[in-house]
């Protein structure tokens, strides 16, 4: 009997440990960060801005409760010597424990990126709490503005930007992918660019009278980094070329001039594509054969030519490969002559094929790359033509 009582008492006291003791934290005590921005201030300090979710606005009744609505997120910032230092100052303003685990995006401001992106990414990779699959981007301007922008179709701008990247229309990169590019000698890192755009006048009852112009986030090209410092940008057109050369053009469309009717265009939506880079090196000359394979469906036709004929489709395919070739050549030239940086990973392809030569060439790879010749060959196929065989509404000739 005494033993039974002892066991019962033991169980009773042990159950107190079940909840876990040390790092216990209730969800109501956490400041859940949705987006993070890092800027360099005028005085050379690091400014850490975070977008913190207000849990009340996310609950079911949050939207419809009319008056006294609290904004779904709060953007707050602090400055410091390092990111951790800034976080400590931030903790003086935020009445809850800062919780990184749900941060969707990490935005680096333009000035900060010029100073160095690695001093930003290091904190987020070293600390266990932020996820490695945060979306990394460089802002044209200040990162804080991205977080403060008004969201579209989502509660907060961080979420909206996260959704934007997931659509895979531009070049997108997660922080671990950036770290991989940074660690590799055969490729220079490129990071998604974002900027804030004015979207006309605010309408609707919720927007209030005081704000007339809405600020929205928009993906805008790609930031090119040398080692880890921002040295330039690729615009949206050049980004398409980058995607083709990196073999990541899985979404999007190719707009080609219509066969038989100049001045009118045909749109072909990409369905499948892959890119193969074959380096050739004879000890002196270095060149790359880039083979791009793409399949697409015609989704739009401005001209009135009957394109549903084998020879017209052939012409369309030729036009398509010309277009892709022009896009990629433009990007390639910019990378080779203007930046002198291998942002496509040609070095890795070279390393795979010529491992001995690579040992010597990796130390001056970017120069080698700038001098290298590149042949781009595109094999384009138009697979479907949509639901129309003739341009609808035009009389047969």
């Amino acid at each position: 009997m005494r033993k039974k009582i002892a066991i019962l008492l033991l169980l009773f006291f042990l159950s107190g440990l079940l909840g876990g003791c040390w790092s216990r934290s209730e969800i109501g005590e956490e400041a859940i960060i949705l987006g993070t921005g890092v800027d360099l201030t005028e005085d050379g300090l690091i400014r850490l801005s975070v977008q913190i979710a207000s849990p009340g606005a996310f609950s079911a009744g949050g939207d419809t409760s009319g008056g006294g609505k609290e904004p779904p997120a709060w953007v707050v910032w602090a400055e410091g010597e390092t990111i951790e230092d800034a976080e400590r100052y931030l903790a003086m303003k935020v009445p809850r424990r800062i919780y990184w685990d749900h941060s969707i995006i990490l935005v680096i401001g333009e000035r900060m990126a010029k100073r160095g992106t690695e001093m930003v990414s290091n904190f987020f990779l070293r600390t266990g709490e932020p996820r490695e699959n945060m979306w990394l981007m460089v802002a044209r301007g200040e990162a804080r503005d991205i977080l403060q922008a008004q969201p579209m179709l989502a509660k907060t701008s961080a979420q909206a930007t996260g959704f934007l990247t997931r659509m895979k229309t531009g070049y997108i990169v997660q922080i671990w992918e950036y770290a991989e590019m940074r660690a590799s000698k055969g490729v220079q890192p490129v990071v998604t660019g974002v900027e804030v755009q004015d979207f006309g006048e605010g309408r609707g009852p919720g927007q209030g009278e005081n704000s007339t112009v809405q600020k929205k986030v928009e993906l805008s090209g790609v930031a090119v980094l040398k080692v880890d410092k921002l040295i330039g940008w690729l615009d949206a057109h050049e980004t398409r070329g980058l995607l083709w050369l990196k073999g990541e053009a899985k979404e999007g469309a190719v707009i080609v001039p219509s066969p038989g009717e100049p001045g009118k265009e045909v749109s072909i939506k990409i369905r499948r594509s892959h890119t193969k880079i074959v380096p050739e090196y004879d000890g002196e000359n270095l060149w790359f054969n880039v083979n791009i394979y793409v399949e697409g469906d015609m989704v739009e036709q401005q001209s009135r030519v009957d394109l549903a004929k084998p020879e017209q489709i052939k012409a369309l395919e030729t036009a398509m490969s010309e277009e892709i070739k022009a896009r990629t050549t433009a990007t390639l030239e910019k990378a080779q002559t203007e930046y002198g940086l291998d942002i496509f990973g040609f070095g890795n392809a070279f390393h795979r094929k010529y491992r001995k030569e690579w040992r010597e060439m990796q130390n001056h790879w970017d120069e080698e790359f700038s001098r290298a010749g590149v042949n781009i060959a595109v094999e384009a196929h138009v697979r479907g033509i949509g639901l129309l065989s003739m341009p609808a509404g035009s009389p047969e000739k």
Partner: protein
Amino acid sequence: MLEHGKIDSKQAILLMISMILPTAILIVPAITLKYAKQDAWLSLILATLVGLLIAWLVVSLSLRFPGKTIIEYTEEILGRVLGKIVGFLYIYTFMRIGSGVCREFGFFLVTAMMPETPMIVFIIIAIVISAYAVRNGLEVLCRFNQLFIPVTGLLVIAFLLSTTNMKLTRLLPVFDTGLLSIAQGAVSPIAWLGEILTLAMIIPYLTKPKEAYRVAVISVLLSGFILMINTMESLLIFGPDLANHWLYPTYNAVRVVSIANFLERLDAVILMVWILGGFIKIGVFYYAFVLGSAQWMGLKDYRPLVLPAGLIMGASSYFLFGINIVEYYSHLPYHLILPEVVIPLLLLIVALAKGKGKKSEDEAT
């Protein structure tokens, strides 16, 4: 005999796998990838082959002395004084690995998951649980293990889920790092697979000691295979350049898995394997340490030693390996080659030369 329980071959295999893998899955890939980069798989094949040799060595040696553990038969081979010294070395090795595992166990939990909890809390919890299992004997330890080993299968599922992030081209070019680097990369997996040495404490308690060869070979092959899967997982996801920058690459590899934006945050898988496996791994070395000490001192029962042994292991996990993780890593793992390979080999040679023990043909118990 000090231990009255008996375990069958299947239990022994499972016990050996849980004894090798739990810490290996997180720590070995980082070290192997550092040296061998994209040739890490070659290192692991090499390590598995060497592991099989060690297994063969340990089992051949043990089967010459049926019913005896390595602590007992070293005395028979080398004589009383020298035998006691070598025996002590083995007890020390078991203790050292055991406390090293405690340290790794605590370090990972503190670094990755719970930075505010003192590490000693994790170490004490692990030792208390293992102590309970050890006190109840080998059979209880094995049953505990049988209950939880299916969790290891989650590692394979995590691997399958993370294939979406993998690129096979990251394995190229082959042989880039050279033979020396591949061999260097093989050292730490060899040290881990060589922990099959612990089987020398368990063979007398197998229901069919003859099957010890099978037990050892299957354990090493399966462990080598799962280790390979884990190393490949981080290599194929992060590529050779980034993968070796992580301290626990498997953990990070599982963390980046995100399927359709809802199947993500699989860290828990690693954590489950780590915690449950950690208890078993500590338990096996704890058991070997306690049983070996009792035999070394000629005691009739090992149970009085359980508590002091636990205190020694817990305390030395702090004192032997330095305060920070960098010091801990600098202790890995070359010193293990001596007790795992060199001494068993010497023992076998001496036993053969002196004609001690049975010949392997008539090894019936």
